[in-house]
């Protein structure tokens, strides 16, 4: 991300900020979409992150870290989105046509559905760690910085997230877990 654009945006240049936001929009949406498992909620989270970024941009001391800062704002917006939802509004997103490959057989679709259900059993904090680690590909230190948590907490959240998902999947289809991943 170009630091000079960030600097201009910090001085109140809206065009510079629009350029930064446009460049980051897709990646932030993709991350938000995966944490929240809901496209509309992801849009709202990204929008909230942009508003906070524009409002508080002058608090950012190092323009080089704009992208990491945006990830932090996005994750916090995801947290807020999750808290705003009422308990019965838990989003169970069916595998949509765009995601499903017509060639997938029923077992594959069923497997994706089980993963989705297991993922939604995780706390939003655990989901954020999983997404930043396994989707964005951030090292643990960067994840910790983006989320404002120590590296050790990143590792522990990852561990418990995976364990929870394995447990959920084992309960849903014990044979597949035994066959594919062992115990």
């Amino acid at each position, binding site marked *: 991300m170009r630091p000079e654009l960030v600097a201009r945006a910090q001085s109140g240049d809206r065009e510079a900020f629009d350029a930064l936001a446009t460049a980051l929009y897709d990646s932030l949406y993709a991350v938000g979409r995966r944490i929240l498992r809901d496209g509309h909620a992801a*849009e709202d989270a990204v929008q909230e992150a942009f508003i906070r970024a524009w409002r508080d941009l002058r608090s950012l001391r190092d323009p080089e870290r704009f992208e990491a800062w945006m990830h932090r704002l996005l994750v916090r917006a995801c947290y807020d989105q999750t808290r705003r939802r009422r308990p019965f509004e838990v989003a169970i997103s069916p595998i949509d046509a765009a995601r499903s490959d017509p060639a997938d057989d029923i077992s594959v679709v069923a497997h994706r559905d089980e993963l989705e259900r297991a993922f939604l059993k995780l706390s939003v904090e655990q989901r954020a760690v999983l997404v930043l680690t*396994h989707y964005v590909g951030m090292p643990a230190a960067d994840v910790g910085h983006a989320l404002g948590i120590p590296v050790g907490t990143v590792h522990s959240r990852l561990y418990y997230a995976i364990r929870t998902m*394995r447990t959920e999947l084992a309960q849903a289809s014990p044979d597949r877990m035994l066959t594919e991943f062992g115990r």
Partner: protein
Amino acid sequence: MTNRTFDATVADWLREGPETGPRHGLDRALAATRRVDQRPAWLFPRRYLPRPLAELDLRIPAPVAAAGVLVLTLLLVFALAIALVGTRPRARLPWVPAAERPIAFQEGSAIFLARLDGSERRKISGDVPYATSPLFSPDGTQVAFLAPSNAGATGGRLLVAAVDGSAPLVEASRGLSVVTGQVPSVTWSPDGTRLAFAASSGGVSRIFVTAGVGGDVVPVTDDTANADLPTWSPDGTVIAFRVTDLDGVHRHIRIVQPDGAALETINDMISADASFSKPHFAPDGGPLAYAVNYGFGTRTRAIIDARFTHTAEMWTDGIGGFPDAGVPYSPDGKYLAFITATDGVMVAENDESIPAEGLPGAGQYDGQLRRLGKVADCWIEWAPDGKSLYGGSPDGCAGVVVIPLDDPTAARRLPTATSGFASWQLLLPRSNER
């Protein structure tokens, strides 16, 4: 299979799905930012912290942070209140700058008024052959003075002159012979409508009170003891004075109501060669201050006396000047002034924390003493604004000196020869001078 395989499965699953967001979502988000103003940089305290500290995410809940800020703000306001209000004088000085007010003084055989620089000088004692001991009324409109037949007489008339010369002299003593000592035995009531004085009656000095200036005169002490040096309390309810029994040995400080009722003894002493000075009331009507001369000069003491219950000796190394002059309070009541035998003029902090008799620390004076040096002699008084003292000049009291408290070395002398006590006009300020 291993956990790593499961992680890879989860990663693959996470990679499924859209990599781009809808365009309308971007447009909506950008439009939303335009409805928000950017906060100025100074609103972010972390910008001023070292980077490692700034990057700590303390995650303080907003209510806790708000409560903390509120408490800190209240503490700051409290500290400012103490700093600004607590350091101000407890009592507003009800006088305008003293230099603007005239001083009444005796020069030769007459009483004059003049400002500090000698300007606006005028005589107010009329054609009285000899006049001494002028004393301004509290409202500053009249001056009482004594008019003995000559400089050596022990008694004389008490006359009152209007400062603006609008009225003829009034004889307040109504034929009585008012005592004329080194220290005048005359006091105005706080409202300036009456006078109390010591006058000789049947060979005994008694305290008399007038009914109005020039009105009837009524004794408030009997003829069993000599009473003199009266002082009217600031609230007008009592008059303090000293008493020497006819045996010349028993001595007292007493108070009495202006109608002669409720006579009360404040202090007693039995000594043929000792004496009390004139008592002075604190401006709030609190403890009396006076000097006690145990004889031989050097053992004179300055005392704060709240009617026996709270007594402390500010000074025990001898009082100088006129032994009867006493220890006057400053207009705000925070300080007292007196002349010492060895250290010249002394200003003492009024110690209000003196424990009552019988309690630990009773009689212990804990106030501060400030030595101004030998800048005055005979008598000392406070200027109406409390910012300076005035008294007899140190060259034998042939003049009046004014001593600024912030720089006693800048003491200056009234540009005229004077003798005896002078009196600086006390005048309540006009409303626009407060």
